[in-house]
């Protein structure tokens, strides 16, 4: 049963990743570099809604809070974050999105990404011997932001409501990203000037200005009088 659920969840996850354009490495790179606000907006909205629903399900006891574990925050978290982020920003893919890359256009790049993740997983037990020295420069502990477990230490009071507010803040941040990069609204094209109500009344040397919803206004440019004066001058001269 669990295998079927995992398969269904993976299928849905792959479809969502494809719709979010996470299979395109360029789009992911631009989203991380704040160069593609529409992708970043989608990611923030997805994360924010996910945090809110997780808080709701934890409050309703659908998610067992005994399974919630807070990983230790120490020097390894910061160092690993820097290395992970640099590789993510440079390559435009992550361990989670490599499966989506595999199922998209660039099959061989996805296959290499999956092979790289597998090689990393194989090398991880050997690298664990060097990790304590890399983690030890900053001591820390495992915390949750709010009190959502029975025994894990937490940083702020507020419980599940506070956790839901964090999700709401992420959603608002996503909406602000869109607004900050939104192009100014284009003006509606001006309506085509209506034809003159009585074309025979309009003289050839008159300038006609017609505004939408208004009666045609005929403005005499005075060119006819100037031409008559010129003719009189020529005859007299």
């Amino acid at each position, binding site marked *: 049963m669990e*295998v079927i659920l*995992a398969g269904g969840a*993976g*299928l*849905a*996850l*792959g*479809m969502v*990743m*494809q*719709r979010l354009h996470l*299979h395109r490495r360029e789009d992911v*790179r631009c989203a*991380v*570099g704040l*160069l593609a606000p529409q992708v970043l907006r989608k990611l923030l909205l997805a994360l924010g809604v*996910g945090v809110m629903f997780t808080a709701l399900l934890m409050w309703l006891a659908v998610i067992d809070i005994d399974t919630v574990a807070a*990983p*230790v*925050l120490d020097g*390894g*978290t*910061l*160092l*690993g*974050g820097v*290395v*992970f*982020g*640099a*590789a*993510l*920003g*440079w*390559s435009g*893919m992550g*361990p989670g999105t*490599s*499966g*989506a*890359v*595999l*199922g998209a*256009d*660039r099959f*061989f790049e996805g296959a*290499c990404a999956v092979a*790289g*993740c*597998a090689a*990393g997983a194989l*090398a991880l037990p050997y*690298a664990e011997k060097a*990790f304590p020295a*890399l983690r030890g420069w900053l001591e820390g502990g*495992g*915390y*949750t932001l*709010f009190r959502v477990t029975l025994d894990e230490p937490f940083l702020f009071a507020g419980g599940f409501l506070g956790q839901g507010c*964090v999700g709401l803040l992420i959603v608002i941040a996503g909406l602000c990203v869109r607004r900050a990069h939104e192009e100014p609204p284009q003006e509606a094209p001006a309506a085509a000037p209506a034809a003159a109500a009585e074309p025979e009344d309009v003289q050839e040397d008159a300038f006609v200005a017609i505004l939408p919803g208004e009666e045609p206004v005929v403005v005499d440019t005075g060119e006819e009088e100037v031409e008559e004066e010129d003719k009189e001058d020529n005859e007299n001269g």
Partner: protein
Amino acid sequence: MIQLVLYAMTAVGAFLAALPERIRRRKEPRLRSTWQGCLVCFGAGVIMVLAAGLARMNGQLLLGLLQGSASAYVFAAVAWLAGLVAARIKERRRRT
């Protein structure tokens, strides 16, 4: 086993979701893999799995973000800042 099934079905799901667009654009030239791209993807996969292991975030990042783990939020913030710099440098090099 469960994680392997989840991972494999992610690729299947992405393939199925991309299928209508592929059929619609079957006459247009498709994006092709390059050996540089393959090399970058392989190296990035190794480095990211090791970095996530260093931070104890292998398979825990998204879960930690959803469940409110402080270390997951710190890891995501630091990773995003580093990724921002790396992505900007990469894009600048690519466009010049």
